[in-house]
């Protein structure tokens, strides 16, 4: 398959789309941070009655942590609603991989929520998911690489 063609014709569901972590708008920031830590994930969608109202990512968490070092941890007591980013850029399920790459590159996003026509979150597409898609599509080129560029075998193994 031609990768160039597949980038523009293949839809984002061909890439691994992660199950989104969802919390309510009243959830305390501290609890949200703990859940991100437990699940080792970098973002959470804030939803009210099935509809997405915001996103909170590890970048937002970083900024809060930097502020908390100066202003104290009471910063983490408030609801997530107050610190989330409202109306995030989203993708619909019929978006192509190329358009997702372009959106991420232009906006500087590392993850985009995938939503259905009613704005209900279906999943999360991350930059790592796209890298995985690309690697999967060059299986021979990429998987046959030596683990270190300098460690290529001098001779074929075996008889």
């Amino acid at each position, binding site marked *: *398959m*031609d*990768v*160039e*063609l597949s*980038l*523009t014709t293949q839809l984002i569901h061909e890439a691994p789309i992660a199950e989104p972590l969802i919390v309510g708008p009243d959830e305390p*920031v*501290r609890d949200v*941070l*703990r859940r*991100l*830590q437990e699940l*080792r994930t*970098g973002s959470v969608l804030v939803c009210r009655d099935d509809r997405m109202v915001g996103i909170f990512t*590890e*970048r937002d*968490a*970083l*900024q809060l*942590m*930097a502020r*908390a*070092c*100066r202003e*104290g*941890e009471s910063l*983490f007591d408030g609801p997530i609603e107050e610190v989330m980013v409202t109306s995030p850029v989203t993708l619909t399920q019929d978006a192509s991989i*190329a358009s997702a*790459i*372009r959106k*991420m*590159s*232009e906006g*500087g996003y*590392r993850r985009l929520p995938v939503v259905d026509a009613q704005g209900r979150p279906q999943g999360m597409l991350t*930059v*790592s998911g*796209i*890298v*995985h898609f*690309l*690697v999967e599509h*060059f299986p*021979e*080129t*990429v*998987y*046959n*690489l*030596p683990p270190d*560029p300098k460690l*290529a*075998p*001098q*001779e*074929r193994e075996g008889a």
Partner: protein
Amino acid sequence: MDGRVICPHCSTWNIAGVDTCAQCHQSLADVQLTRKPMSRVEENLLRDRLRALGPVPPVVVGPETPVCEVLDRLVTEKIGCVLVMEDDQLLGIFSERDALLKLNADAAQLATRPVSEFMTPSVETLEFDDSIVFALHKMDLGGFRHIPLYRDGKVAGIVSIRDFFRYMVDDLIATT
């Protein structure tokens, strides 16, 4: 591209059928048993070196730097990670992900502790002149977003997935 084969180790063009690469003398036997790059995207990723992504000089801190200072630099310089170095030696990397997983809601209590306690040691690195596919491979396997690059034996740059996406958009899918 018929009649020629790209060496996957040093990206030199070779005449199809030769046993070893004219440039680096690595065996080409495996390469010629498998298919050749089938598209422009794949060919470019094999041919282009990491320097084509425009690696920027890394932001470097010492191992004793208090972690709150590191958080501030990540925020003010709008970057995702810093390299922890001492005497030109790379000790580790501290990224947003380390902040989230290791500091989390305890950030204020841990603020004055040295960054070396929270960094990720044993960093995966590459060279400026390695192919882009090597970086993709490492990022996919390890789940990394940044890879420090060496040039002439010294850490001289860092590339991120963001740099790679910019390269994809600029060079490869610009026309679509």
